[in-house]
């Protein structure tokens, strides 16, 4: 808070009112609704509902489909985060080392940020298509009987690859910014002390980049959880057999397509708790970064 502040009785309320109203109507109300519905059993037409306590949660947690979806989300998020971060870090380190033409490389490596996940998903669908997709032909030619319609592994492979493709550029921006914020003097000192570029990277650059890295990791997990909805809906719709449905996609499937309000709300609440945990971690790291 500022030392110097205005004193005015009504003005601050007027200024904050639009934001508060929108948050109250479109955030607090639906979030409360989700929590309320997670304890209720409603018939599909919304005519009657009764309080069932934790039954919805018990049912969700005990369900095989939910377990499948949770495992897929875990593997999917871990792979998307790891692969896109590793690739972005490699590219950022190389771009950072280049003086001439750096801005051209920067533009070429960042524009994918602006492509919608759903658009990426559609192009991915075509690239892996059985009749017209060059990647499908290529994979078949290597002897892999590739079929994302029937095989969970193959379907997962396609959504992971497209999700990684979409995320590399965002990670690249952060890693490059992180690298360029390392003071020149530190870099020069490291250059004198350590001739071997690879060792210099491991012992000097990487530890200095760790806070950025952690922050990027949190962004990537959030991305894999929520923003990949468009990729999954356009590419696999959770098929085959729910094997590529992330937890968020399942909330949509069960609630909107399956009209199971109680179960879907219980899933929402579980996700809220997960995200809450993630945010607490993120804020801890943010605090640390501010004191850095």
């Amino acid at each position, binding site marked *: 808070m*500022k030392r*110097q502040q*205005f004193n*005015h009785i009504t*003005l*601050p*309320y007027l*200024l*904050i009112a*639009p*934001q*508060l109203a*929108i*948050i109250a*109507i*479109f*955030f607090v*109300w*639906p*979030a409360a*609704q*989700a929590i309320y519905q997670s304890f209720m059993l409603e018939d599909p037409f919304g005519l009657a509902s009764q309080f069932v306590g934790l039954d919805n949660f018990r049912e969700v947690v005990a369900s095989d489909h939910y377990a499948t979806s949770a495992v897929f989300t875990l593997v999917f998020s871990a792979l998307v985060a790891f692969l896109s971060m590793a690739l972005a870090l490699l*590219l950022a380190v190389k771009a950072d*080392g280049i*003086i*001439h033409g750096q801005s051209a490389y920067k533009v*070429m*490596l960042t*524009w994918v940020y602006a492509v*919608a996940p*759903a*658009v990426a998903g559609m*192009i*991915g669908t*075509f*690239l892996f298509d059985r*009749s*017209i997709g060059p990647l499908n*032909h290529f994979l078949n030619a290597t002897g892999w009987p590739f079929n994302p319609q029937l095989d969970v592994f193959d379907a997962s492979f396609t959504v992971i690859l497209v999700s990684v*493709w979409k995320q590399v*550029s*965002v990670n690249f*921006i*952060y890693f490059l*910014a992180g690298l360029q914020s390392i003071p020149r003097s530190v870099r020069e000192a490291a250059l004198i002390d350590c001739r071997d570029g690879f060792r210099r990277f491991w012992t000097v650059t990487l530890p200095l980049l760790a806070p950025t890295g952690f*922050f990027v990791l949190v*962004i990537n997990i*959030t991305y894999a959880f929520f923003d990949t909805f*468009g990729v999954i809906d*356009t590419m696999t719709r959770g098929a085959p057999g729910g094997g590529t449905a992330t937890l*968020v996609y399942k*909330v*949509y499937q069960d*609630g*909107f397509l399956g009209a199971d*309000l109680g179960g879907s*709300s219980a899933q929402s609440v579980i996700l*809220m708790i997960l*995200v809450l945990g993630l*945010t607490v971690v993120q804020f801890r790291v943010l605090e640390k970064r501010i004191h850095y």
Partner: protein
Amino acid sequence: MKNVKPLDHLILILGILFLLLPIWIAFASSTHRPETLLGEGLQLWFGDYFWETYSAVLFENTGFTEQVNAVLMLQNSMVLGLGFSIGKIIISTLAAYAIVYFRFPAGSFFFWIIFSSLLLPLEVRIIPSYEVVSDLGMLNSYTGLILPLIASATATFFFRQFYKSVPEEILEAARIDGAGPFRFFVDILLPLSKTMIAAIFIIMFVVGWNQYLWPILMTTDESYFTVVMGIKQILNDLEGNRIPQYNKALALSILALLPPVMVVVIFQRWFVKGLVESEK
């Protein structure tokens, strides 16, 4: 000081190819006839049907009601992108100003309510959000499309951080010169945050334009379809055709990605600045 190795350039060029090739193939293939694509697969080089494909996608009415074309969908996306980014900037600059520059009862309570919205993306509360918008009679309207998406305080958080970094002496000096809260905001604080506003505008425009799940849920009237949700529509249509219109589907995806990509490439400097500074 640094010796540039050809290997570094090679890795960067491979990285660019990895990112560029899918879009390149999509664009090149969209200029062929659907028969060519069906027979020979996606194409690496351009065909002779650029204008035929794109004019058909842009101007010919399709969809269930035969009333929607890409021009209309692009307009809707523009309304969503601009409405979302401008709305968000107006609301959040005001709220952040109140939070940073005023001391008022319940101020910190409001602050926490607003920031609690950072915790939960729309995706986890889609069904109750849909019900609320439906109860308010806002389905199939721009208001219903835009307002629920604005209900997340990301931009407020960025502006709060920025205002807090503005030196106190500026306010002191403004007060000595007799500026009230309104004058200070309009004549001093907003001009100071010009770059920040530009950066947030670009990022939010892209976010708004690229929305997918929310528009799918709340627009059933085809005249409100955005170009990104048109993707879902055209993918569904593919199965019904004897010769799937792959070229048109790819043309639509190129049309859908072009505006946000142009914005990011043209305003590269501001965009990167905003992204990196705001999210730290």
